[in-house]
C-alpha cells in the first residue's frame, strides 16, 4: 500500500475516511484544528464546523442515532464544553459508531491550562484509546468505530500536541465496506434519558466498563515487550516513545487503551519484572488505578506532574532517583538575548483598540483568541482571561462588587467566533440583569487564532460554500442590548470617544468593531491601504508611534548620541494608518 508522511491530525482524518465515517463536526482549537480541515479532503464525509464543542458532539450524536458513523474533534478544554452531552451519551450508547477525538496540550503551547483528558474517560465511563504515532492515529481511529459498535459506547481517542502536530510514516488502506445504511429506528427506552429509563441504563454502563477491561486483557492494542526483568514500565501514547528512547533496556507494557485498564495483563506484567514504574504525562491516571489494585508501582514519586515529558526528562528523573546512571551533561551556555514572543500582526484591527483601552485606564476582562495578545507590552491592556465566553460574564459579575467610579472602568473584549461560541449566553445574562459593563465585540469576520477558520458570522461554511451569516449587531439587540455602536477600529479618535462614552454609561452597552482580519486573503475588501513611510526630516524621535507595538515600525537609534528615529518596513506595512494618527508631527506619510 501507499506510504505517506502524515501528521497525527491528518492520520486521524484518514482513519475516519477508512472507517466509513458519514458525519464530522468540530470547533477549531489548537492542536486539534487540522483534523477537520483534512477530513474535508474526503467528499463522502459530511463535515462542518460547529459554533462550539457541545454542538459539535451533539451533531455527531444525532448522526450516530441515525445509524451513521460520526466523529467530533476538539481540544482538551473543548471537552469541558461538550461534557454535558458526553456523560449522558455514555448511558444511551450509540447507533453508528461514535468517536470523540480530544487533543491535549501538555506544556500549554497554546492553551490556558493543561488538564488531562483521560480523567473524562473514567468520569464518563467510556473507553479511551491513545495512539503513539501517526500510524496508530489512523489505525486506532479505525478500531475505535468497531469498538464503539461492538460495546454500544462512545469512544474517546486522546492525542496531544506532539502526536497531533508530529509527523511520521503511515501506510494507507482502502475504506471499509459493508456498513449498514443509516435509517431511523425508534428506541425511546434507550435514547430518552428520563429518570426511569436512565436508571435502567446505568447498570449497563457499569457492566460495559468491566467487559471493556476484560476485552483489553486480550486485545493486541495493549502490548507487552519483555526486555530486562529489572525495570518494567507502563506507558502509553507519545510517552511510550520517550520511554523507548530514554530506557531502551526496560520492559514495557504499552497501553493502546488507557481506560478501562487491562487489569489481568497489568498484574501479569508486574509479576514478571522486579520493579514496575508508570511513566505518564500530567496526572497519575494509570498509576492511581494500578496502586488501587494493590500493586506496588513507582510513578509521580519521580516523574514530574507538570508540563511535557521528553526522553531527557525521563532519563533525568530515573537518574535523580538513583535508578540509572547517566553521563554528566553540561548544556552549551549562551548569553542572555532578547526574547521573541508572539505579537499581533502588522495592520491587526485589534491594535488601536487595545491602545485606547490602555489610554482610558480600562480594566479589561479578556477572552480566548488573537486579541489575548493585547496583554503583551507595550499595549498592556488585558486584566483577566479565563475561558471561551468568560469576558462578558466576568465583566457582568465584577461590576456588581465595585464602587460606581470603578465600575465605569470595566470593559469586556471578545472576538466574533468566541462570542458565537459561548459569549451569547453571557451577553444574554448581562442584558437581562442590566449589568452596567461595556462589551467590545472584535468582529474580524474569522476565527483567526487557530488559522482563520470560518464561523457562523463569516458567511461561508467549512468547505468554502456561501452561507447565511449571523448579523452580530442585530443579535445583540435581540438579546436585549439597547446601547449598541459599530465602530471602525482604524479610526482612533472615534474609537476613543465611543469607548469613553459607553464606559461612562450606567447601562449595559456593546461596541462592535467592523474591520476584518488583515490576513484574510483573496479579497480586495480586506486591503487596508497604501504603504506608509516616515519622513526622516519631520520625525522628531518622540516614539509615539512605537507605543502601539506594530512589528512594521522599527526604532533606529542615531549613532552620534542624537535622538533616533522611527522607520516603517515597507514589506510589513499594511497601511492601516493607526501609527499615522498618533504622530503629532505629521511625519508618517502616504496612504491618504
Amino acid at each position, binding site marked *: 500500500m501507499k506510504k505517506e508522511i502524515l501528521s497525527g491530525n491528518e492520520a486521524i482524518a484518514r482513519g475516519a475516511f477508512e472507517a466509513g465515517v458519514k458525519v464530522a463536526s468540530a470547533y477549531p482549537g489548537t*492542536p486539534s484544528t487540522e483534523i477537520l480541515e483534512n477530513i474535508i479532503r474526503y467528499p463522502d464525509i459530511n463535515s462542518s464546523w460547529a459554533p462550539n464543542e457541545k454542538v459539535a458532539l451533539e451533531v455527531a450524536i444525532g448522526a450516530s442515532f441515525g445509524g451513521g458513523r460520526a466523529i467530533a474533534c476538539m481540544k482538551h478544554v473543548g471537552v469541558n464544553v461538550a461534557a454535558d452531552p458526553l456523560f449522558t451519551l455514555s448511558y444511551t450508547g450509540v447507533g453508528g459508531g461514535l468517536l470523540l477525538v480530544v487533543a491535549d496540550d501538555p506544556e500549554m503551547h497554546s492553551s490556558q491550562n493543561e488538564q488531562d483528558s483521560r480523567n473524562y474517560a473514567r468520569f464518563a465511563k467510556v473507553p479511551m484509546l491513545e495512539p503513539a504515532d501517526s500510524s496508530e492515529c489512523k489505525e486506532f481511529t479505525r478500531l475505535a468505530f468497531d469498538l464503539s459498535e461492538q460495546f454500544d459506547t462512545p469512544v474517546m481517542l486522546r492525542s496531544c500536541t506532539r502526536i497531533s502536530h508530529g509527523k511520521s510514516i503511515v501506510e494507507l488502506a482502502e475504506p471499509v465496506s459493508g456498513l449498514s445504511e443509516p435509517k431511523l429506528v425508534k428506541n425511546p427506552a434507550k435514547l430518552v434519558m428520563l429518570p426511569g429509563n436512565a436508571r435502567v441504563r446505568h447498570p449497563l454502563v457499569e457492566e460495559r466498563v468491566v467487559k471493556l477491561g476484560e476485552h483489553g486483557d486480550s486485545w493486541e492494542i495493549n502490548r507487552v515487550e519483555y526486555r530486562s526483568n529489572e525495570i518494567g514500565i507502563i506507558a502509553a501514547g507519545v510517552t511510550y516513545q520517550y520511554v523507548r528512547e530514554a530506557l531502551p533496556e526496560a520492559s514495557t507494557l504499552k497501553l493502546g487503551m488507557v481506560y478501562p485498564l487491562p487489569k489481568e495483563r497489568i498484574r501479569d506484567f508486574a509479576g514478571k519484572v522486579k520493579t514496575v514504574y508508570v511513566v505518564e504525562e500530567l496526572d497519575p491516571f494509570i498509576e492511581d488505578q494500578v496502586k488501587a489494585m494493590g500493586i506496588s508501582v513507582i510513578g509521580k514519586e519521580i516523574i514530574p506532574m507538570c508540563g511535557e515529558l521528553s526522553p531527557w526528562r525521563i532519563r533525568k528523573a530515573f537518574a535523580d532517583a538513583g535508578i540509572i546512571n547517566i553521563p554528566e551533561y553540561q548544556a552549551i551556555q549562551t548569553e542572555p538575548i*532578547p526574547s521573541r514572543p508572539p505579537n499581533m500582526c502588522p495592520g491587526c484591527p485589534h491594535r488601536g483598540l487595545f491602545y485606547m483601552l490602555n489610554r482610558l485606564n480600562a480594566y479589561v476582562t479578556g477572552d480566548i483568541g488573537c486579541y489575548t495578545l493585547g496583554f503583551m507590552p507595550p499595549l498592556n491592556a488585558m486584566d483577566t482571561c479565563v475561558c471561551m465566553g468568560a469576558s462578558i460574564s466576568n465583566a457582568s459579575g465584577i461590576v456588581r462588587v465595585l464602587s460606581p467610579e470603578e465600575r465605569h472602568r470595566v470593559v469586556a473584549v471578545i472576538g466574533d467566533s468566541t462570542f458565537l461560541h459561548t459569549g451569547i449566553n453571557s451577553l444574554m445574562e448581562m442584558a437581562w440583569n442590566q449589568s452596567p459593563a461595556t462589551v467590545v465585540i472584535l468582529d474580524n469576520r474569522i476565527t483567526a487564532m487557530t488559522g482563520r477558520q470560518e464561523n457562523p458570522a463569516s458567511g461561508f461554511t467549512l468547505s468554502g460554500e456561501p452561507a447565511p451569516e449571523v448579523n452580530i449587531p442585530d443579535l445583540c439587540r435581540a438579546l436585549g442590548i439597547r446601547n449598541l455602536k459599530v465602530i471602525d477600529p482604524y479610526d482612533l479618535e472615534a474609537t476613543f470617544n465611543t469607548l469613553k462614552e459607553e464606559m461612562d454609561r450606567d447601562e449595559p452597552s456593546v461596541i462592535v468593531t467592523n474591520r476584518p482580519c488583515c490576513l484574510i486573503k483573496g479579497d480586495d475588501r480586506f486591503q487596508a491601504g497604501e504603504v506608509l513611510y516616515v519622513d526622516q526630516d519631520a520625525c522628531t524621535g518622540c516614539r509615539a508611534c512605537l507605543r502601539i507595538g506594530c*512589528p512594521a515600525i522599527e526604532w533606529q537609534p542615531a549613532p552620534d548620541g542624537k535622538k533616533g528615529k522611527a522607520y516603517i518596513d515597507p514589506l510589513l506595512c499594511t497601511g492601516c494608518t493607526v501609527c499615522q494618527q498618533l504622530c503629532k508631527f505629521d511625519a508618517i506619510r502616504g496612504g491618504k
Partner: protein
Amino acid sequence: MSDKVTNILLVGVGGQGILLASEILAEAFMLAGFDVKKSEIHGMSQRGGSVVSHVRFGATVCSPVVPEGEGDILFGFELLETYRYLPLLRSGAKVVANDFRIYPPAVLLGQQAYPDGLAEKIRNLMPDLLLVDGLKFAIEAGNPRAANTVLLGAVSGKLDIEESVWLNAIEKMVPRKALDVNLKAFRIGRSL
C-alpha cells in the same frame, strides 16, 4: 552505526517557511528509505514568535522530539534564533545559518539592542558553521522567496543522501510554477 538516529532542528521566526522546509527534509528521508519523525508547535508561535521544528531520521525513530543536547544539525533561518537554540545541540554539531536578521519586539521598540557579532558567537560555540546569505543566492536563482531552498541545499550537503532523492522530494512538495527556481536555488545551496 546504522542504528544511529540523526537529529535536525530547524529554527527561525513564525512566517519564515520553516514548516515547508522541514516537510521537504522529512520527505527526502522517507524516499531514501529511512524511518522519519518530525514535530513542531503551531498556534501562538505563528504570530511572529520563535519557532522550532524537530526532524529525526534513522533505522527506527521513537520520540518525535530531539532530546536536549543531542541535536546533530541546526538549520537556522535567522541569526538570533540560531543562537537561541544552540543549547539543544551536542558539542561538535553542524550549523547552517541564514545570514539574516529579524528584529524581535524589544528591539523594534528600542528597549534592547539586537546583539552584535552573533555569527562569531555562534562559531565560538559551534566551529562547524556554514553562514549563508540566503537572500543573495535566492535572487541569483530568480526569486528572493527561494532563500529557504538555498539553505536547504546547503543543509543537504551535510547529509549523506543522493542528490536525486532531494530533487524528487522538492518536486513532490513545491508547487509546479515555483519548481524551476527552487531546483536552481537548491543546487546553488548544495554547492556552497
